[in-house]
């Protein structure tokens, strides 16, 4: 009995492999990326029968040829990591196509177990499979399961362990046409004589792959003698069979499968139009399809924000509470500022969006699991193809209108690395939810009469730029074949609660972990930039000269009020104060109210002083200086150093722009609905500048959470930085054009 076995799960997409993987491993999964590629690596270690088992979830593939990065990865894992057994998860309702992968696994001559999943669906469709005969024919043990219900899953591990410990492999060898076999043999001989480094491989498999023109194997075996033989083979086979070797070999595999199925599979009812077809006739309808789709998307976004709001409020309160407590508990000024403003403020500002993001993840998981996402790709492909993208790219774009982070994670569904990266790079141009506060601040300030129109124009600019950039990148940096559209439309299925929650949990955890660490880091850096260098004490003292006087005044006046017996009304004590104050005489009341007003004024003056100090501190700090330093660069696009400083803060998270603008105009805490801030804006800038600000915020580098996720999903810093600098460059150029053209007319 071997100890510490490795079991690899293979199978078509949509065959229920992930559900079975989740059932076998629970939530204890380790997820990373395979080195150098954007393919996810999922493995997990479980204990079963006192043994440690490593279970690898291979990427879902339809075959093992070398055209897509997933297949090469899956193949290399099997060949190089040598799992003790490979379990192929097969959709029983879709047998022939699923067996294409199975047959290729058999060609690798490794221990196998076949799992005929979705037995319930097959039964519904009237498909009867003679498992015993099929198993005998293939020489592979076959288990039937209904993964979504958990039936039969335990047997998988038992059979896998049995197979892993079995010495011989008795799979039938698929024999091809006479002329092909002739060359398979000759090439195999040459391989044995002329190749090194092939101990991991089965030589017949290598020969067949070379005849198929497999690019990956051709790199393993570059011998020119063998290349010559292959060329000869190509000519001969074409002549004799009228087909390329690739076609002939594929046909032979399907012929074998077809023969096996004819013997062992009967279809009693030709289920022509089932439930799935009926639903599709409505959802993908020529006329209704797009309106229904738009309606559904609106519903998803609406629900996300409505359901998320109460949670958002709760988190805001929580962080506010933390901030207060820290304010009180920490005595060291600088440390307190770091914790409260830097960490709690920065991190909290991003975490506050978590509920919205989680709900988005849930919605996406449901749409994906139900099968509707494939229909979305189907409907929108024509438009996407014109830009040089794939129908599946539409989904990240759509989600991007909510938040770029889940949008970029959604690019996993794209088959082709080039499409995936191109989509990731361009998605943040879709104006996300965090930029909304900026628009909500600026639009009422400058475009009171045409608010909806201007907002719409901003969104439109984002979309247009995205399309243009996608086209440009597709022709230059990311040149290459776009993946063929050939795509399966899986039957509609009711998503399992467990599956949806697991997916939501996995992605949210990823967001927290990855984005969280970078967010924390950048928050601290941002904080440092806005605090250091410290505004010198003597200068602060100048501002605060008047402070002590004012505080004294307030103390004295408050004492007077107490003497009179007047209670200042606040939100909390309205009723109490009323009843107490009504007992005073009119003259006392009048006097008291006058004093109260004086106290108010003094407070306001204190606020003003504090705000001025904050403004001066910011101006003095690194962020302020950088803002001043880049002012000449910002001038051509209409910005001054104050906007520059605020934009630096916006890198952390876009909404920070508004808060920073508030500080820079000495308004202290300001939100997007601050009329005072709008006044300041109107005083200092023209509508053109306002518009320029929005365009720049729209197009410039995405927030740090997005940056972190792009790095993770593309598995390289290169693309994350490319996006960062590229988007900023695009923002600058476009804003420049808009601003300068605008100036010509004004």
């Amino acid at each position: 009995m071997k100890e510490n076995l490795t079991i690899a799960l293979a199978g078509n997409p949509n065959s229920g492999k992930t559900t079975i993987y989740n059932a076998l491993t629970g939530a204890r999964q380790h997820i990373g990326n395979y080195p150098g590629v954007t393919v996810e690596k999922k493995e997990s270690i479980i204990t079963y029968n006192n043994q440690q088992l490593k279970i690898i979830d291979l990427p879902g593939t339809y075959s093992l040829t070398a055209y897509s990065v997933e297949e090469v990865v899956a193949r290399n894992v099997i060949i190089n990591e040598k799992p003790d057994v490979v379990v192929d998860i097969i959709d029983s309702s879709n047998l022939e196509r699923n067996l294409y992968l199975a047959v290729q696994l058999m060609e690798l001559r490794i221990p196998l177990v076949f799992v005929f999943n979705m037995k319930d669906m097959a039964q519904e469709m009237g498909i009867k499979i003679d498992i015993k005969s099929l198993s005998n024919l293939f020489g592979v043990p076959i288990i039937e399961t209904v993964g979504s219900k958990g039936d039969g899953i335990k047997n998988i591990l038992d059979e896998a362990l049995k197979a892993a410990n079995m010495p011989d492999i008795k799979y039938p060898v698929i024999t091809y046409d006479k002329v092909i076999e002739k060359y398979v043999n000759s090439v195999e001989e040459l391989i044995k004589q002329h190749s090194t480094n092939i101990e991991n491989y089965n030589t017949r498999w290598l020969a067949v792959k070379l005849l198929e023109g497999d690019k990956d194997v051709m790199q393993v075996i570059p011998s020119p003698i063998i290349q010559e033989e292959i060329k000869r083979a190509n000519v001969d086979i074409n002549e004799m069979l009228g087909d390329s070797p690739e076609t002939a070999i594929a046909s032979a595999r399907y012929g074998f499968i077809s023969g096996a199925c004819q013997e062992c599979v009967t279809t009693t009812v030709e289920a022509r139009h089932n439930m799935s077809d009926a639903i599709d006739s409505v959802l993908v309808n020529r006329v209704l399809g797009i309106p229904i789709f738009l309606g559904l998307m609106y519903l998803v976004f609406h629900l996300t924000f409505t359901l998320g709001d109460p949670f958002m409020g709760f988190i805001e309160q929580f962080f506010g509470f933390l901030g207060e407590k820290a304010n009180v508990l920490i005595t060291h000024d600088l440390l307190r500022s770091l914790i409260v403003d830097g960490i709690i403020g920065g991190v909290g500002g991003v975490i506050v969006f978590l509920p919205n993001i989680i709900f988005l993840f849930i919605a996406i998981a449901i749409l994906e699991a139900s099968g509707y996402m494939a229909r979305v790709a189907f409907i929108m492909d024509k438009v996407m193809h014109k830009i040089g993208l794939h129908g599946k790219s539409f989904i990240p774009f759509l989600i991007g209108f909510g938040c770029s982070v889940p949008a970029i994670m959604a690019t996993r569904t794209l088959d082709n690395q080039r499409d995936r990266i191109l989509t990731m790079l361009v998605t943040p141009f879709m104006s996300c939810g965090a930029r909304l506060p900026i628009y909500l601040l600026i639009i009422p300030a400058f475009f009171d009469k045409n608010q909806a129109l201007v907002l719409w124009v901003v969104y439109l600019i984002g979309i247009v730029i995205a399309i243009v950039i996608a086209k440009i990148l597709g022709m230059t940096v990311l040149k290459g074949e776009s993946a063929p559209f050939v795509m399966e439309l899986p039957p509609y299925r009711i998503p399992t609660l467990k599956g949806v929650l697991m997916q939501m949990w996995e992605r949210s955890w990823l967001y927290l972990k990855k984005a969280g660490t970078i967010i924390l880091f950048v928050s601290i850096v941002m904080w440092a930039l806005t605090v250091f260098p410290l505004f010198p004490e003597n200068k602060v003292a100048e501002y605060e000269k008047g402070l002590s006087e004012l505080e004294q005044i307030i103390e004295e006046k408050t004492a007077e009020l107490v003497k009179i017996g007047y209670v200042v009304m606040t939100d909390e004590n309205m009723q109490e104060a009323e009843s107490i104050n009504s007992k005073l005489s009119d003259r006392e009341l009048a006097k008291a109210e006058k004093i109260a007003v004086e106290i108010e004024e003094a407070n306001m003056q204190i606020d003003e002083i504090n705000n001025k100090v904050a403004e001066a501190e910011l101006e003095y700090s690194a962020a302020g200086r950088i803002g001043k330093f880049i002012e000449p660069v910002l001038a051509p696009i209409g910005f001054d150093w104050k906007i520059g400083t605020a934009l630096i803060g916006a890198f952390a998270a876009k909404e920070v722009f508004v808060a920073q603008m508030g500080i820079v105009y000495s308004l202290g805490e300001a939100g997007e609905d601050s009329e005072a801030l709008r006044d300041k804006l109107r005083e200092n800038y023209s509508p053109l500048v306002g518009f320029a600000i929005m365009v720049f915020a729209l197009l410039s580098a995405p927030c740090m959470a997005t940056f972190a996720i792009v790095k993770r999903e593309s598995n390289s810093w290169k693309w994350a930085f490319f996006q960062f600098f590229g988007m900023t460059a695009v923002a600058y150029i476009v804003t420049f054009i808009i601003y300068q053209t605008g100036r010509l007319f004004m």
Partner: protein
Amino acid sequence: MYLSEELTSSLEDYLETIYLIISEKEAVRPKDIAKRMNVSNASVTGALKTLANKGMINYAPYDVITLTNEGRMAAMDVLRRHELLKDFLVKVLGISVEEADKAACAMEHGISVEIIDKLARFAEFIEICPRGGEDWANGKISHCDKTVSLEVCQECISSVSDKVHKNHCKQLQGGRIVKKLNDVRPGERCKVVKITSKGNLFKRITEMGLTTGTVIEVERVAPLGDPVEMKVKGYHLSLRKDEASKIEVEMI
């Protein structure tokens, strides 16, 4: 394809025979040839020597005979001419297969490649052109011999125009309607005949189960006109129209 050296008809016959025997049995002995062609061993030896001199075969006494590349090409050329002539005789002139075979054997030598090509294309044309077709070729032999009247001709013409309306495109291949998959409309069923794509697309199409002989039922077209959804091997597959144009199908 023209021969680098001109061969006599008799030598061409030898080449043809050698090629046929090789494709059946792999190796050829002089006595096999003698038997097939009904000639003496001596004649065979003489011919073989000449062919070897001309570089058409590899011939050593008491050894098996094989064709050189040139010899193979020459033999295939002869065979091709034979088939084309036979085709023409059977399809256009309505001659029986055995007679056509014998006649072709006699005719295949000495006719220039040009003439043969034109005969071949004429035969093709007769089959494809709606005004012609097998019926027309046969009609030429039966009806028109007897009486030629305006009525008979008018009937003939209107039935042709009916046929054209019904079949969008009728090609060689014995009366099957062969189209590209992107021309098949929703609700129609067809069977894959040939896949003309290469590389990535070919592999994708194959692994999704679209191999020769697979039945496809076209379901619908997307709201924007592209892509197309179809039922294949029991599941739903979608393809762009330009991808579908690389698959030739036969309507059923």
